[in-house]
């Protein structure tokens, strides 16, 4: 990748991954780590998109299945399935670590900010706040996600509570 000629303020790096044969992107700076899929500890009585928690070098992080979060078709996990550990900020501007399950990681892309298309407005009825924008790359449309808004504030609270419990252990 050639990044030298580009002003760093105008270029942002995105980690792209596949989900149900579509490509999504997250800001690389929000990514803490990328891991292969390994079984998680199931937490009962949680929303179905929360697969459970994972022990990440001593800290307990919640794992969210983005397929289920986005109401996509559910598939079995494969050896290609990865967990992308994200460090997100929620409303109190506190950082919070969680993992999302993706079908596969694709690439790291340098994207000019002015090449990011505004996400279409579907009205207030549809929750598209988690969309940061769209980017066209080699005829593919990559949906860039705003990971801070990936979850509702209430959900973040709930999930944070789970990870807090894990922290006490």
């Amino acid at each position, binding site marked *: *990748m050639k*990044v*030298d000629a580009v002003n*760093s303020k105008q270029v942002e*790096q995105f*980690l792209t991954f596949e989900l149900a044969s579509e490509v999504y992107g997250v800001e*690389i*700076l929000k*990514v*803490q*780590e*990328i*891991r*292969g899929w390994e079984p998680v500890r199931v937490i009962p009585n949680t929303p179905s998109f929360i697969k459970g928690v994972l022990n990440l070098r001593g800290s307990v992080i919640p794992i969210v299945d983005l397929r289920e979060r986005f109401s996509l078709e559910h598939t079995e996990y494969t*050896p*290609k399935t*990865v967990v992308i550990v994200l460090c997100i900020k929620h409303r109190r501007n506190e950082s919070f670590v969680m993992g999302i399950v993706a079908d596969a*990681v694709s*690439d*790291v892309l340098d994207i000019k900010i002015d090449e990011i298309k505004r996400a279409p407005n579907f009205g207030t009825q549809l929750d598209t706040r988690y969309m940061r924008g769209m980017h066209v790359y080699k005829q593919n449309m990559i949906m860039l996600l705003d990971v801070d808004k990936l979850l509702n504030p209430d959900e973040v609270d709930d999930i944070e509570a789970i990870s807090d419990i894990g922290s006490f252990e």
Partner: protein
Amino acid sequence: MKINMPITNNEVVMKSNTILVTRTDLKGVITFANDAFVDISGYSREELIGSSHNIVRHPEMPAAAFEDMWRTLKQNRPWQGMVKNRTKSGDFYWVNANAMPLFENNAVKGYLSVRLTPSRAEIDAANQLYRKINAKEATLHPTGLAAARKFLSEISLGKKLAIACTLLMLPNILLLRELLSSESYLLIGALGVSTLIAFWIMAHVTQSTRNFFVSAVHELFRLSVNEFSPPLNLTRNDQFGDLFRGIYVAGVKLGDDIAQAKQANSNSLRIIQGLKYAECSILITNANSEIIFVNQAAEQLFLRAEKDIQTAIPSFSVQKLLGSPIDIFHNVPALQKEALDKLQDSKTSQFDLAGHTMQLTVKPVFEVNRERIGYVAEWLDRTTEVKIEGEIEHLVRAIKQGDLGKRINLNDKNGFMKSLSTNINELTDVIENVFNDINHIIAKLAEGDLTNSIHSDYQGIYAQCKDNMNDAIVKISEFIIQIREAADFVNTSSQEMASGNNNLSNRVEQQAASLEETAASMQELSSTVVSNAENTKTATVVVKSAAEVAEKGGEVVKSAIAAMQAINESSNRIAEIIGVIDEIAFQTNLLALNASVEAARAGEQGRGFSVVATEVRNLAQRSATAAKQSNELIQNSVQEVRSGTAFVNETGAALMEIVDSIIHVGTIVGHITSASNEQSAGISQVNQAVSQMDDITQQNAALAEQAAAGSMAMSEQAAKMTHLLNFFKINGKSPAAFSAKAKLATSKPAANVQSAANSKVAVNASFDEWEEF
């Protein structure tokens, strides 16, 4: 003076205890006569009422007697005397007559005569007296000295007392005169006072006695006008009191009698009213058999029959019935006087009266002392009933004899008889309809017409009869239809059989010819079989060498399979190794990505590192791609080896089957050899059989001809039967239409026969088959 003539010397003696009563007006005209008077007088009541009373006067009665009677009555005094009366026929009878005026409101309104039965002595005395009077030897009233004595003795009570007083006073007056002369004035005074007292008492007694008699007489006259409970002084202790009490008792008793008489009268009035309006017709006569009562029903009965009766008895009239003698129906034996006199109890008889059938029940009526006082006759006009009885009997006899056309005429009937007659007519109607229907149906049945049925509505046994009849006809119709169908079927079948048999006969002849050809063919077949046996021996040798070659092929296939197995195992191993490489590439890629992440986080300082990480990631991806391709190739080769192994296995199995088949062919060739030998033996047996078949075929030809002739005869019989059955006419199916239908029905089962018999093509085809055989 009225002289009633003639007279006879026959005396009619009054029965004892009989009272003859008449009433007349002031002129002596009879206004009432009781039964006993009417009875003894010999006149009818109509003749008596309104006639002068002298209608019964006997000429031998002295006129002076009647003059005396009238004179007495005009003085409002009762008259009593013996009277000789004359009956209508001229006979005479004596009565003890009592005549008196009848008062009403203190005025005389008429006269009442009550006649009692006289004793024989009285009759004789009176007879003698009247004879003397008529001969002017005696008078009715005493004359001369006797008259003076009578006058004196009947001077009124006061006068008699006055005379007595005067006579008593004479000595006193003489004594007074002596005393005056002797001037003894005290004595004169005493005498005068006592005399005056005596006078006063005398006068008082006379006065009260006179008043008493006046009031007693007044009361007695009041009794005569039915005024009872006289206001009398009943407490007097003297003889006057006794008399008052006697009058009072007599008056009360009289009142009681009259009340009882009234009671009895109203009782009988009720009964008479009841009888009057009773349903049955009743006539009542008195002892003289005169009709004295006709009730309404009887009046109407005779009014209805009046015209008819008048043809037989012209004098008959319902108006005149009352008062007529009962033997006005002079031709009725039960009502003749002799028959009535003998009658002791009720007697019922039936007779014809001028075309009316009358039922008459006569019963005598007796007094308490068994004296006959009349008759009760109950009439019943049974003309209509008898007529209807006759009509019904006539009708029933006609029905018994099978004549159902007769009916009872309803025009002259009403009420119960009309409804009875209507019911009987309806009964006859029903029976007639039933028999007409059945008769019609059976007559049609006899003509073979089965299209009729009974449609009328009946009930009970008639309805059962109707249903059974209709069912029977339906059953017979069905039966005949079935017989017809059967007959038609037999007809067509026998015709087809006949043609079939003809065909059979022809074929059998052809069969005989064919059998000769068969015998020749058999000879040729025999030589062919011998050469077959030779060829099979050569075939056995060839088969054996082929089996050896095939077994060698089987060995080669087995070693090829083992080699394939080894290749397969090596391929699997390679695939595992490639999986490891792929795993390493994946992990490398992840590591490189993490490195990129770290580099990004390091910002400008990590940019070089980021480039390296990217290069590493590219390498990892390339090795992953290479591993993937290798894996695909190895998978393909494993697949190819597998299918090759399968082919080799199939080849091995095919070779084994070839070996088996060749061995099998060897055995079959052996069998063919032995079979050929048996065939040659069989063919000689076939030859023998063919000659037997030839004989049998000849016999078959003869039998087929006989069968054809039999079938033709059967066809003729069936046609006759169909013709006979056409005699029956069946509902909704003409015989022609039926016959067509029967043919249609039979065409299906006969199809096989027909196809052989009627179709030329089929015949040709069967000939071809025959020739082939």
